[in-house]
């Protein structure tokens, strides 16, 4: 928890400093049309650096008091989280190429088999039905296009 806390605060500090630096490039003084573009974000950046500093000092105070905070992750928890994040990431990656319908179908099939251990009939039915429902509701009813992938055009379909 402590390490995570400090890492997170460091990241926020870095973002704050980046914002300050960038803002300075846009001009932080008084221009022809009022305050220049960088002045307001500069204030925000300074505020963010200050908050990160406050979070640091808070964490250090806990540290010195010797209170042991609970660990950031329960043992083994990262595996569970990864079991969701990785297939989802793969699905999005595939979506760029083969479209969301096929990618989602594969994603459902893999996830239901691997984590849920469902019967093949259930898996097949749902892997077809849910992407199809998405197609009908979003594209047919509400005319919202979903990503269809770039491969099909290249194959001449």
């Amino acid at each position: 928890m402590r390490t995570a806390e400090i890492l997170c605060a460091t990241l926020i500090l870095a973002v704050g400093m980046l914002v300050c630096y960038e803002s300075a490039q846009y001009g932080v003084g008084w221009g022809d049309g009022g305050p220049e573009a960088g002045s307001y974000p500069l204030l925000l950046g300074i505020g963010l650096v200050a908050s990160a500093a406050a979070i640091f000092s808070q964490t250090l105070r806990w540290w010195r008091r010797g209170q042991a905070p609970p660990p950031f992750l329960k043992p083994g928890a990262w595996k569970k989280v990864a079991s969701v994040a990785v297939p989802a990431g793969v699905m999005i990656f595939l979506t760029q190429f083969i479209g969301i319908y096929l990618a989602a179908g594969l994603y459902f099939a893999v996830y239901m088999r691997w984590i849920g251990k469902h019967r093949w009939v259930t898996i097949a039915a749902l892997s077809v039905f849910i992407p199809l429902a998405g197609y009908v509701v979003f594209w047919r009813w509400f005319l919202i296009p979903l990503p269809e992938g770039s491969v099909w055009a290249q194959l001449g379909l």
Partner: protein
Amino acid sequence: MEAIQSLLAGFEIFLTPHNLLMAVAGILLGAVVGVLPGLGVANGVAILIPLTFGMSPNSAIILLAAIYWGGLFGGVITSILFNIPGEPWSVATTFDGYPMAKKGQAGKALTAAFCSHFVGAVFATVMLTFFAPIVAEFSLLFGPPEMFAVMMLTFSAMVGLVGKSPAKTAASILLGLIMAAVGLDIVTGGLRFTFGTTELMGGFSFLVVVIGLFGIGEIFLTVEEGLKMDGVASGMSVRTVLETLREMPRYWRTLIRGAVIGCWMGIKPGGATPASFMSYGFAKQFSKHPEAFGTGTVEGVVAPEVAAHAAGVSAMLPMITLGIPGSPTAAVMLGGLMIWGLQPGPMLFKEHADFVWGLIASIWASNALGVLIVLALVPLFVAILRIPFSILMPSIVFLCAIGAYAVNNRIVDIWYVIVFGVVGYVFKKLDYPLAPLVLALVLGDLAETAMRQSLIMSQGSLAIFFASPIAAAVNGLAILFFLWPGVKAVRARLRPQPATPKATLQDVPAADR
């Protein structure tokens, strides 16, 4: 009685078959969203906003608002029957709702909760109907310095009054404001923080951020917790419903107290969750049988629920009058308003009276419809919770991906959703509140414009923020709130007190508040 006339006109807009259908569909969808622990209302509304692009603003807001009410109702079912809060504002309901369910009084607990919701809704809607036009009229006097002051008050209230760690709340707000500044600078037309990429030119869409933070982040948390769905039978019957209804007037004190707390907490940006805890705490303090709390007393269910719903409804008041949302869900709806081409703010009441009054009429009707629908359909919602997690979870991810893509038709937005999902997960674990970030992201452009316009008006003098009585008073209050954590710390050091156990917001991760 102008308000009543306007309200009747509003009902004329609402009472078309199409809009009624929207309301019913919204309540059903919202209840499903509310029931499912991995799917929050703010996220549900964000996913569905693209569906409303082709609708008239009237129907669109009726649909989205109905999802909100449905979500408020739905969270109760999961809390009482499964001891898992379906929504953060139902956490306090698990304290007494689940024990009641285990004693075989689930039907009674559910009915009492739904009735409390209805009372909270009526109370807050009456307030909204008569108070909103007055606030709107008053806020027409607001220029940029006053608007800026009101936004400062919003942010300062979150830093000073709500969160556990003021520094983390401040960081959250500032990150939101900075994200809002990415892209085109609205005053000079230059680009900021794009680092030479085209992806960042359009800035961050708040819908994508909400779906990531609240949708995917929530899923990561749920998976880590390893959700076990062991439900108690609901045991709803017409007889239990009627018996409980007859019992309700007994709790009038708790109901009114909770509704007042809810209205107050909803108007100032605190949201439904702290309101529900506060109401629970007060009910326990003033009860004749405080020891019964936590063992399954009806009062313990009534108190948080009435406040949660009242807060949810009254969060609409600053949204429609000032253009400042009182909760993350209201923030998403406000973003929707801008997408539909309406300018939120004091002029909304004047220029789009039909929109505003149609919305207010729909709040009346949807909440009444909502009680009937959820009472009748409890078994259906319970059945949804029996769907295995390994089917539910990928479906929610699929919906989040579609929702993110539909905003701008860009695949990169789906990646953003995953990135913000990780951010949301880490922030929630480390107690950084998420709601302020979303509110700041939605309000960012308005806040910057208000500040720069004020400074242009005064030619650079900061005195303009204290020139008019309204701006001075509101800014003064904001500064007080910002300093409040410091004042508290100093007082605590001067006067060391034994810690008093309160029933207690501290049990909830800050992000939920």
